[in-house]
Structures are given as structure tokens and as C-alpha cells.
């Protein structure tokens, strides 16, 4: 490839210095930027560690263990990726509420009604799909702005979770036992030489990452989502039936929320009615992750790898912050870091658009 391009010196792109091309790659390829930031983070933290500035050891075991926090974050980030990609102001504020409702549903079914694990999980996931389907129908078929539709269902679903559970966590011996599923495991065969990795990564996160990646990159559905998100009108002229596809991304967002609902039950050892909505809720961090991962809020641009790397960056940054600022301070500084990273990322998006056109 390089030899053929070298043969065409007329192309101005090829005559630029390596430095300016590297800069462009850094600014326009979000994945490159995130990878560089992760490396910088690891180096800085390692230096701080060896200088004794940290309250604990920032080593591979610690990093691996911290990945448990990546499970819900990355999964919901992928849910936001799907809806934001689909364009027309796509966003899903209701993911946290859906997590709460499906978590309660799972807790009830598995813990109280005595359903078997698979049926209970299926119940939570299908319920998530239905809740997402309501969002999707409002957006795709009635024409609601997604922000408004999902704001309404954020309130409604949150209320359903709290009323259904009588505002009390659902708990039972079965759920307690399920807690062990969230514990870290040693990988078979090669595991001994690697740090312990939380089980949730393998049972939930990685399958979801793979499925979403396949959907977006290997299926015609993914092509249609990108097409509708890039240019809704052109998608219709190209013979794409846009509405069912837009409905489906919201259904998927609900399905993923259902899975996260199950994960949170495992993590907390009980089904909490405010699992997805306590504090700042789960929607905000998920949207932050998506934007940081290079998803354009206007639709049509965004990749699974970006969301995954953004999650890893934030999770490891947060883990580092907890060591550098022990106790409550750490949690607070995490907020600051998240906010600054988001503002920085969106300003960077704007700058990139102006400097290099498009994005």
C-alpha cells in the first residue's frame, strides 16, 4: 500500500510529515486517542505507585478486580451506542429505571416465585425488551423526541420498580447463592499465570460486547442503523424501512438493561428497587462513556471498540483515583474527572470537526 501511494506524490496527504499525520490520527481516530490515554494513565499511576503516593498497590490484580465496575458501565454504554447511533436525537435516559425494574423482576421470579435461573433471567430480559419497545414505539412510530420519551419512561419505570417491590429490596437464600456467580474466577488452563478476573466480565460483558459488535458490523441491521443515523432521509430513499430498525435499537437497549438488572442483583446480593436510579443513576455515566468513546450525539458515528476502551479508561482512572484520594474524597474526585473528561471530549469533537471536517 505504502509503495503505491508513494508513487503518487501529487496527493497532499502523503507529503505531510509523520508528526502531523500522527496528530490527525490522534484527533480523528478516537480509538487511538483512548488507547494512548490508557497507556499514559497506566504509566502515571505506576510512577505514583512506585513513589509511594498511593494508598494501595496499582497492580494487575487491582486493575483486574476493578473491572467488575466495567460490567454495567460498558453494557449500558453499548446500549447508548445503539440508540445514539440511530440518529434523530437518539438517547435513552430510562436505562437506569429499566435496570431497576428488570432487577426486581428477576429477584421476584428467581428469589420469591421459585422459578429456575434460566427462566427468571429470560423473564428479566424479555421484560427489558418490552420496556425498551415502549420507548422505541414512542420514538419511531409516534415521533417523540427520544429525550422526552425516555424522560417520561424514566419516571414511569422507576415508579413501577419502587411500587412493585414495595420500596424494599427483594432478598432470599437463592439470591444470596447467586451472589457467588459474581465472584472472580481463575481462567482454566492459562488462569494460573493471570490475575483473577471478575466472572461478570465473561458471563455478561464479553458476550454483550461480541453480540453488539456483530450486530453493528456483521449484520444488515447494523448497516441500516448506521444509514438511518447518518442520513434519515437518504436511508428512506435507499429503500430502508427506517422505523422498525429504530424501534429495535430501543428494544435492544431494554434487553441490555435487563441483563444489567441481573448483574446488579448478583453484585448487591439482593434486588434493589433503586439499583439503576440511586444517586446520579446509571444513564448519565453510560451516556458519558458513549460520548467519550467517540459516539457523535447527532448519530451515525460510533464504534463498539471506542465504548469499550472508554469504559476501561474511566474504570482504571476511577480505580487510580481511589488509591490517590483515599476514602470519600476519591468518590468525589471521580465525579470531577468524569465531568472534565466529558467536557474535554466534546470540545475535542467540535475542534476535530472544524479542523478536519466531518468526523
Amino acid at each position: 500500500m505504502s509503495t503505491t501511494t508513494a508513487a503518487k506524490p501529487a496527493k497532499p496527504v502523503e507529503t505531510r510529515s509523520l508528526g502531523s499525520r500522527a496528530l490527525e490520527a490522534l484527533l480523528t481516530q478516537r480509538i487511538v486517542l483512548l488507547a494512548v490515554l490508557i497507556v499514559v494513565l497506566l504509566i502515571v499511576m505506576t510512577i505514583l505507585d512506585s513513589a509511594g503516593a498511593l494508598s494501595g498497590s496499582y497492580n494487575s490484580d487491582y486493575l483486574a478486580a476493578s473491572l467488575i465496575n466495567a460490567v454495567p458501565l460498558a453494557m449500558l454504554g453499548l446500549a447508548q451506542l445503539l440508540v445514539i447511533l440511530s440518529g434523530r436525537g437518539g438517547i435513552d435516559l430510562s436505562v437506569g429505571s429499566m435496570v431497576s425494574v428488570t432487577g426486581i423482576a428477576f429477584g421476584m421470579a428467581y428469589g420469591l416465585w421459585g422459578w429456575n435461573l434460566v427462566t427468571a433471567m429470560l423473564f428479566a430480559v424479555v421484560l427489558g425488551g418490552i420496556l425498551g419497545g415502549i420507548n422505541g414505539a414512542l420514538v419511531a412510530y409516534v415521533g417523540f423526541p427520544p429525550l422526552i420519551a425516555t424522560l417520561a419512561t424514566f419516571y414511569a419505570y422507576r415508579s413501577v420498580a419502587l411500587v412493585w417491590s414495595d420500596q424494599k429490596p427483594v432478598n432470599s437464600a437463592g439470591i444470596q447463592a447467586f451472589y457467588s456467580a459474581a465472584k472472580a474466577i481463575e481462567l482454566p488452563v492459562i488462569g494460573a499465570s493471570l490475575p483473577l478476573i471478575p466472572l461478570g466480565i465473561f458471563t455478561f460483558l464479553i458476550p454483550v460486547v461480541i453480540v453488539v459488535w456483530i450486530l453493528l458490523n456483521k449484520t444488515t441491521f447494523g448497516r441500516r442503523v448506521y444509514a438511518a443515523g447518518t442520513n434519515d432521509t437518504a436511508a428512506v430513499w435507499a429503500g430502508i424501512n427506517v422505523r422498525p430498525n429504530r424501534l429495535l435499537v430501543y428494544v435492544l437497549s431494554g434487553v441490555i438493561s435487563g441483563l444489567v438488572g441481573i448483574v446488579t442483583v448478583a453484585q448487591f446480593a439482593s434486588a434493589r428497587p433503586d439499583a439503576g436510579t440511586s444517586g446520579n443513576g446509571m444513564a448519565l455515566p453510560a451516556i458519558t462513556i458513549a460520548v467519550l468513546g467517540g459516539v457523535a450525539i447527532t448519530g451515525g458515528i460510533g464504534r463498539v471498540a471506542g465504548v469499550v476502551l472508554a469504559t476501561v479508561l474511566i474504570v482504571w482512572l476511577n480505580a487510580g483515583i481511589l488509591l490517590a484520594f483515599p476514602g470519600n474524597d476519591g468518590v468525589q474526585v471521580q465525579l470531577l474527572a468524569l465531568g472534565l473528561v466529558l467536557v474535554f471530549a466534546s470540545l475535542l469533537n467540535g475542534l476535530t470537526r472544524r479542523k478536519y471536517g466531518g468526523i
Partner: protein
Amino acid sequence: MTVLDREPSEAVKPVARRVLPPPVTGQELVLVAVIAVLWVLLGIFTPSFLSPSSIQPLLVSVAPIALIGVGMTFIIITAGIDVSVGGAIALCAVVTAKLLVNYAVPLPVAVAASMALGLVLGLVNGTLIAYGRVHAIIITFGTANIFQFFALRVFGSSTVNNIPATLDVFGRGDVGRTFGVPHSFAITILVVLLAWWYLRHTAGGRHLFAIGGNANAARLAGVKVQPRVLLAYAITGTLVGLGACFLIAAGTSTLDQGVGIGRELAVIAAVVIGGTSILGGRGSVIGTLLGAILVQTVTSGVTQLGWPSQLANLFVGLFIIIAVGTDLLRERARRRKA
């Protein structure tokens, strides 16, 4: 020639010549009707709902949401949004509370400080959005976290305790009322009327609608788009400052870390139920006030009926869907006819 044709009485008295669209829209009248029906029903089914001791706290809790909603209405009319008001409320509230606790500042200083701080936060948002040319929702998601961080730093511990009664003049007690009307609610009404007048009668107010309707055409018509957008966020910030004082006063002598959490969505819900279009170009502060009253009526009504209090949010969600949904269907019918 034409002058002679005209009856003199006509020239002197332009009978009911309409120079403006009607001051109240259909959606606002519907909201008034819905609120009236709810109040009557709640009056029938709960013995105490229509008593002053029930209505007064309701109005006190309406005040901060409607007040901040005025600013949010300005922003949404310009086709923007601000999801950082929760964080901004927390920061203004904790700074004011600490001033009261540690320095025993008098009322005017506390209010002025809170509003000044709110103004600064609004200017930060407004500058980034108007001049940084970044998407409002993303930027304010970011600043929400940053404001929250500073708020938590100032809090230090999870609560601020023993707040003096300086702000009680905006509160639920007897000091907080004149002729039975809570002061915070009266001030809110005043701000709503002022904002209504500004939006309806000044060039600056009309320009906000023009910007939300078609920013590019507005620019071509000579509207100073960026300063106007900045102003909308600055006003919101200032009102957040005052609203934070109302919230402190409405509570106990203890301020909790969670004071701002979820408020941004409550405010946006009130604005949207009030008939302001999230796409910009259309909206009303009176609608926002009514939206806030409706939400609080449902919240208070659900509790007084002895239903699970969390059921209220289900109704809030349904109200948003009904309010926006009917608007969408009406618009669709209109377009089909045209």
C-alpha cells in the same frame, strides 16, 4: 379619499383590534382545567387536601421547581437544554448553608451570594454552549458532574446541620407567609409574570423564539444569537441560586448531600408538561408554572390518598407522554391538512 370613508368613531376607538396572539394558549387552559379537576377530586376523596395546611406546603414545593423552570423554559425555547441544574442547585445550596452556619450572614447576603454563584455557573454553561459550539446536553452532563464535585467538597460530611433560621422567610412556617400566601411562591409568581412579559413583549424575548425556530435565519435577520443564548443560561443559573435558597428554607435545619439529585429532570418534566417544545421555538413560562403545580399536586395527592408515594412518578411519566403526545398528533393532523 379613504380618510373620508372612515367613520370617526372607528378611528378613535380601535375596537378590540388584536395586535398580538391570545395571551393564554389552549394547552395552558387544558392544564388549568386538569389541575382544577384534580383539586376537586382530591378535595372530595381526601378530607384535608383543600385545607391551607395542605395547599401551602404544596405551593412551597412548587416554588423552586417553577422558578428554575422559568430559566429552563428560556433555554429550551432556544432549542437548548441544561441537565446540570441538579449539580448547580447542590453547589449553591451548600455554599449558602455554610455561609449561614459558619458566618451567620444576613438574609440579603445569603441570597445575593447564592444567586451570584448560580450566575457564574450559568455563565460557564452558556459560554461553552454559545461560543464553544458543542451540544448542550453533552456539555451540561459534564458540568453537572463538575458542579456535583465542588458541592460535595464544600459539604465535607454528608449533611450540613443546624442551619440558622435566616431563610425561613421563604419556608413552610408562619414567617414564610403573608395573608396565607407563601413568600417563595409569591416571588415565583412575580418572576413568572416578569418572564412572561419579557418573552412576550420585548425584542430580546422574541429573539429567543426566533433562535429556537431557525437559528440561521435569525442570524441573517440580525439577531445576536450567541449573546442571547448565553443570557438564557445565565438567567437559569441566577434562578438556580434563588431556588437553592427556597429549597434550604423548605427543608429542615439540615441540608442533605442529595439536595440536587434528580431536580434537573423534575424541572424539565414541568417545562415539557407545560407545553414547551423540546425542539425549540415554542414555549411558555405560565405553562411551566402550571406543569410544576400539576406534578406537585399529583405527588401530594398520591400521598394523601394513602397510595404508595412512589406511584406519583408513574403519573408524571404519563403526563409527559400525554402532553407531548397530543401535541405531536395535533401537529401531524395539521400537517396532513396543509
